[in-house]
């Protein structure tokens, strides 16, 4: 059975609640700020939001439904998608189908997290059954050790050097500064990257994201509704999603995108060469390279050569993570899974202004998330483009 496309779906109104390193406010504050910005930017009244997805790790003991009462919403379609870096792709896919089916007219997709000084540590201890039983006791205090394993094995297999990862990070920092990110204030040089202190070898300081508080959000509605409201929008050309792919691989050597990427391009009617910019989920640079491979931009284990031959700056020949990605813009919890989407929307709708990439007409946003044991379980991707 061929999958139905996303005709008639519009994705619009990218908003970002500026990131701060630490906040004493609760997650509901950031969600509320995102909602307010969505309403202000779209001109909609709150009552016109009749669909809602919430992606948040710091909401407990609330879930999405608690947010409806907290913020005074009464949606007829609701989803709770706390899936980290895959949250954006998953929220968009669900919201699009709801709009197509008429189950909701305007869906607000919001990702937000607060960050207190002990948020990260407390979250890790209770993140999943398997991490509680089989990884957290080993002291890594997070996925650093696991991605160290993955990085070391990838380097041995592919010949990748730290400098290869470093080039990607340097470009992302330049992208973040150009986009006005306040998390870092100066460019990153390759020497600084290489000299940074080790965290879990071979991962060093600038391979790791900085947890923040913040929010990202967008609206999903019909194309007709977007035009009626006068909102610039992007069309959703294709999407894929997969969980627990390649579970028989003894460790992560390839991401789940390999399984479904042909479906992605077939649905969009294009190939990797047609993509004008790529937003990957960059929890660690090794995963960026593995997304280039998984999404068909190069072959497996050949990403090092791929990045050596290109510039991934926003104004380079392979624009990538054009607002800096999490590595330079910060990771506001689940909002990290939305960051690529809101930047893609800005690029496609012209909101990126002077930062617009050379070919903004078709972009790919990849999602990756949820390290519950020794690898991320969720992989996904969407292709967004200019409306026809």
């Amino acid at each position, binding site marked *: 059975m061929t999958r139905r496309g996303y005709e008639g779906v519009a994705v619009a109104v990218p908003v970002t609640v500026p990131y701060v390193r630490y906040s004493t406010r609760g997650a509901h504050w950031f969600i509320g700020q995102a909602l307010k910005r969505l309403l202000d930017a779209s001109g909609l009244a709150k009552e016109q939001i009749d669909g809602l997805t919430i992606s948040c790790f710091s909401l407990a003991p609330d879930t999405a439904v608690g947010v409806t009462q907290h913020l005074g919403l009464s949606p007829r379609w609701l989803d709770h998608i706390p899936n980290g870096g895959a949250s954006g792709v998953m929220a968009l896919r669900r919201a699009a189908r709801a709009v197509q089916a008429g189950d909701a007219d305007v869906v607000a997709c919001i990702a937000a997290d607060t960050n207190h000084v002990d948020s990260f540590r407390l979250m890790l201890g209770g993140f999943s059954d398997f991490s509680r039983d089989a990884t*957290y006791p080993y*002291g890594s205090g997070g996925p650093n050790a696991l991605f160290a*394993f993955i990085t070391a094995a990838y380097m041995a297999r592919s010949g990748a050097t730290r400098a290869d990862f470093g080039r990607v990070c340097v470009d992302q920092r330049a992208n973040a500064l150009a986009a006005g990110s306040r998390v870092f204030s100066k460019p990153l040089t390759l020497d600084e990257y290489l000299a940074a*202190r080790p965290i879990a070898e071979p991962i060093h300081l600038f391979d790791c994201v900085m947890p923040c508080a913040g929010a990202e959000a967008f609206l999903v509605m019909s194309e007709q509704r977007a035009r009626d409201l006068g909102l610039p929008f992007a069309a959703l050309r294709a999407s894929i999603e997969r969980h627990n792919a390649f579970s028989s691989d003894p*460790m992560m050597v390839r991401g789940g995108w390999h399984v479904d990427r042909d479906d992605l391009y077939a649905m969009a009617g294009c190939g990797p060469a047609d993509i004008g910019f790529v937003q990957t989920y960059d929890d660690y640079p090794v995963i960026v390279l593995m997304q280039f491979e998984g999404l068909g931009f190069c072959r497996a284990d050949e990403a090092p050569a791929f990045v050596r031959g290109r510039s991934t700056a926003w104004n380079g020949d392979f624009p990538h993570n054009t607002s800096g990605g999490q590595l330079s813009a910060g990771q506001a919890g689940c909002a990290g899974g939305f960051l690529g989407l809101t930047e893609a929307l800005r690029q496609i709708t012209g909101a990126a202004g002077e930062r617009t990439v050379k070919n903004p007409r078709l972009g790919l946003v990849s999602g990756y998330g949820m390290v519950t044991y020794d690898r991320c379980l969720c992989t996904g991707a969407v292709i967004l483009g200019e409306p026809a």
Partner: protein
Amino acid sequence: MTMPLMRPKRKNPVQRTRQMNVPPWARGRVALSLTAAAAEGRFELQLCRDCGRVQYPPREACGHCTSPRLQWRAQSGAGELLALTTLHHSNDLFFRERLPWRLGLVQLDAGPTVVTHLHGDVTAAPARVSVGARLDRAGRAVLIAFPPEETPHMADDPMLREMSCDPRMRKLLVTDGMTAVGQAAVRALVKAGADLVWVGHAEPWKRHGSGLDDIASLPQVTLVPLDLSNERSVTELAGEIGGKVDIVINNAEVHRGFGIGARRGTDAARAEMEINYFGALRLAQAFGPALKGRAADGVLNATAWVNVLSIYALANFPPHGTFSASKAAAHSLAQCLRAEMQPAGIRVVNVFPGPIDDDWNQNLPPPKLAPEALAKAIVQALRDGVEDVYPGDVAQEWLERWRDDPRVLQRELAAGG
């Protein structure tokens, strides 16, 4: 290459003593079975009885065929180290205080991929390794990748020393040196490299012919008065030496051979309870705090508390019925002690021997456990960092029968064995 343990310099007495922050101790219910097996020195994983797949992390249904029929089975631990890393950062206090710390990712020959601590002699990936389960300082099982063959000074690896309670270079208290078991334990500990063994003895006027003076002549041995029925004796000794004791071995006991009808009055049973149960309580109240306070005090930190119980603690042996009851009470209290010691990272080791080859078991037929064998089992348990020890054939057999069905064992013992 593991460096042999170096004797540390004397401690600077005006500096604060580092306290214990235990590693993460939360585990789900199913995962605790891994800990229960490691407490007895075994590495076990779940095996699906329907499809044969080995499972990890522990779970409620087979990850391959969804069958709920999962059974814990001993594992060889043979595997391939896929990758390793050295942590230079941790949010967890235990690891943060002990950085850098090495971890590995191993694919077991049995199938699953596991995260492990690394023995220092596992240096590069890929490599063959042998994975074992040990209890960490939180008293929970963790997996460790060892080199496949034994290497020199293997036990002195700093990571492994956090998992074990090696008596070497340490100072111990053996609470009763008047008995054969106590004297054998003292000799075994001295042989295992203990620096100092304080040996308790009560009623010193009874020492002639007891063997106490033979061990008193060992250079590592210091005799100390200790009567577990006397609260003041216990608290005074704790005040004098408690701050230096690294391992407490409570072997003091009163053992008589009576059930209910064979001896009128409660005085024999009281004497057993007074030492076996209340004595253990007094000892734990007096020595516990100092032991906990030194749980992270350098490489020769306080590390363990050993209770010499009896296999009769599990199921009453009617000919020694009141003794059995006192050991059952002591066992229950030992579980309480383990819970109270857990946050401090002190290992409580419970030893359940069958009948010892001594005076009070004279009328029992063999097999009986030689005091030297019990002593050896205690030293090995400390080296391996295990918690529950059942030394000797009788203990092993009774344990199997008890686990199979304690109600059946009760009736067998009532009928004479």
